[in-house]
């Protein structure tokens, strides 16, 4: 595939070495790990190895704390539903307004079942107010689910601190760390985080495999019941090839961690500074001082994101947008709205997310192309005139 791929928060390329590690498990090593013969045995060992590779990446105390699932979404659902089932007397959930739909949609659905869900708001930089959080915690709180890093802006939440606060209040703590794993060094054994979600395809493993970290001793109610796979906590014959791939990807992520936080970050910063310097009325959304090293979300005022993406795509550049039009919904991204970004900018946000496969030449190319595209679309915009917004504000009927 030719082109410049700056959409690594959506999904990543599977590393060649990961593919290589997986291949034998389609053919020679096809056995069912539960079988009582050597076909199965070897596969069982491979899964054990993968479990330890993931354990290492997460800094978990025991390898049995790693449960393989089918995706990040399954891990999120399993964690939250388990916490509710395990504590039927507690009827409250605390989460944030900017979670991924994997958590938000589940929570709004749970409201229909009578659960009280508290959605913590964020400020203009996407930050939480911990005093507000503290006030919401009570003996009624079954579970707190707060993401480690936001998928749109990359902004971090202080989950280690929040987990400790939840623990003190007797509530379980889950974090969706789908975007953070592989980019942030983790040491879960030293935290009060009870449950954590991982998705393989965000760290150069295949799509359709994930992990739920479950701290030893935390009460658990499986979502999928059946066979004894994953110690009965997630029934269903293991996706052996993908699990082996995720193990390898986890090992490689450990090795690349420093690179992600130096070189990838340097490229991201160069890209961002380059674009901001050349495009007037553009700004970074989220918290630039505390976020993922690979993500830059830039709002281009007075134009619309889908149009930007279509033009970028013409130049072979792949990114994504928080505009309403790209998602098929009619509202701009809930994350942008939660931060109070005005509509004239929220529709024009573009997320560039890099990976260790991107190059300096690609960054230079995007810096060269973006200003032209923005200028071209602003020429079409009724909000724009010359080098800036129209003096007499454009106010269409029923705005």
């Amino acid at each position: 595939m030719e082109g410049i791929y700056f959409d690594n928060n959506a999904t990543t390329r599977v590393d060649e070495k990961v593919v290589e590690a997986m291949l034998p498990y389609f053919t020679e090593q096809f056995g069912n790990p539960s079988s009582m013969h050597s076909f199965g045995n070897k596969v069982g060992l491979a899964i054990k190895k993968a479990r330890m590779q993931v354990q290492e990446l997460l800094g978990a105390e025991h390898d049995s704390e790693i449960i393989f699932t089918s995706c990040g979404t399954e891990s999120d659902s399993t964690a939250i539903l388990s916490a509710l089932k395990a504590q039927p007397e507690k009827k409250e959930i605390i989460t944030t307004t900017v979670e991924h739909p994997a958590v938000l949609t589940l929570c709004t659905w749970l409201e229909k079942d009578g659960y009280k869900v508290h959605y913590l708001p964020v400020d203009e930089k996407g930050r939480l107010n911990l005093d507000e959080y503290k006030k919401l915690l009570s003996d009624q709180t079954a579970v707190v689910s707060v993401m480690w890093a936001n998928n749109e802006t990359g902004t971090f939440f202080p989950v280690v601190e929040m987990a400790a606060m939840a623990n003190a209040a007797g509530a379980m703590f889950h974090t969706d760390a789908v975007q953070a794993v592989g980019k942030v060094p983790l040491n879960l054994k030293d935290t009060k985080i009870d449950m954590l979600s991982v998705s393989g395809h965000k760290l150069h493993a295949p799509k359709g495999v994930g992990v739920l970290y479950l701290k030893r001793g935390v009460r658990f109610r499986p979502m999928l019941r059946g066979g004894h796979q994953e110690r009965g906590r997630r029934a269903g014959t293991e996706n052996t090839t993908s699990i082996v791939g995720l193990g390898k990807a986890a090992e490689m992520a450990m090795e690349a961690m420093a690179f992600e936080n130096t070189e990838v970050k340097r490229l991201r910063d160069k890209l961002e500074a380059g674009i901001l310097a050349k495009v007037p009325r553009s700004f970074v959304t989220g918290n630039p001082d505390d976020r993922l090293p690979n993500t830059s979300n830039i709002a281009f005022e007075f134009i619309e994101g889908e149009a930007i993406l279509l033009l970028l795509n013409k130049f072979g550049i792949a990114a994504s947008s928080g505009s309403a039009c790209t998602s098929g919904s009619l509202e701009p991204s809930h994350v942008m709205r939660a931060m109070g970004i005005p509509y004239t900018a929220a529709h024009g946000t573009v997320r560039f997310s890099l990976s260790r496969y991107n190059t300096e030449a690609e960054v230079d190319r995007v810096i060269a192309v973006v200003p032209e595209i923005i200028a071209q679309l602003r020429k079409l915009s009724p909000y724009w005139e010359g080098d800036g917004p129209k003096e007499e504000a454009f106010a269409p009927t029923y705005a």
Partner: protein
Amino acid sequence: MWDYSEKVKEHFFQPRNAGVLEGANGVGDVGSISCGDALRLMLKVEPETDIILDAHFQTFGCGSAIASSSALTEMIKGKTLDEALKVSNQDIADYLDGLPPEKMHCSVMGREALQAAVANYRGEEWSDDHEEGALICKCFAIDAVMIEDTIRANNLTSVQDVTNYTKAGGGCSSCHEGIEEILVKVMAERGEDFKPGMPAQEEAKPAGMTNLQRIKKIEAVLESVRPQLKRDGGDIELLDVDGKTIYVSMTGACAGCQMEALTLQGIQQKLMEELKEFIKIVPTKAGALSRATCNP
């Protein structure tokens, strides 16, 4: 990524009549920044004849909003105001070889801008007419008159249709009941019963096939011609189906040869008969197709 026709893409990448029109004497501003599209239509009308001498636009919006605006200006130039007002949103969509259903509201916006610009030229107050109706969809500020007019003009039969054309009901969905009531009323006018849960769109799909069924049919047709191609030392492979465009790669002896065009024409004919719809077959090199990702 949306399934845009070539015509939509062309009007997006090379918009006609974009930018401020000097000496415009009719201007219509419509749209809503909260839902991400807004349009200014500028007309230069010859007072003696009422003929639209020139039309320009400025649009804040997605690819199809920009393409719809561009198409509209092309369609109305040279028409009298009364002729121009007969251009319906469906005409705009047809001119562009169709819009994805979720994007039909872009063509509605074009039509409204036209009404607003003509009213402005004539010194009338267009927005008054709009505010007559009760606000139905609070998320997108769409009123009953607008919904009624759109249902009437396009023979809509479901809440989903109304959302696709006007955006009404696309937000919190609490107004779906209200939209159903309007559907019952307007459909009764034309002697039809409103049936909840019967989206007209589904019926309108090509020959009622799901995408999977369509692809299976296409594959079956290709399979049926394969033996003949193989006899001549060639082969054909299905690469992608993008709306009405079917991408294939030709390999071996038939790639690039004189016979290729003829062979493809025959296959295209056969596909159209099987699918009962107009399609276009495009030979492409494997791997040349690319798609941008959406927003996961």
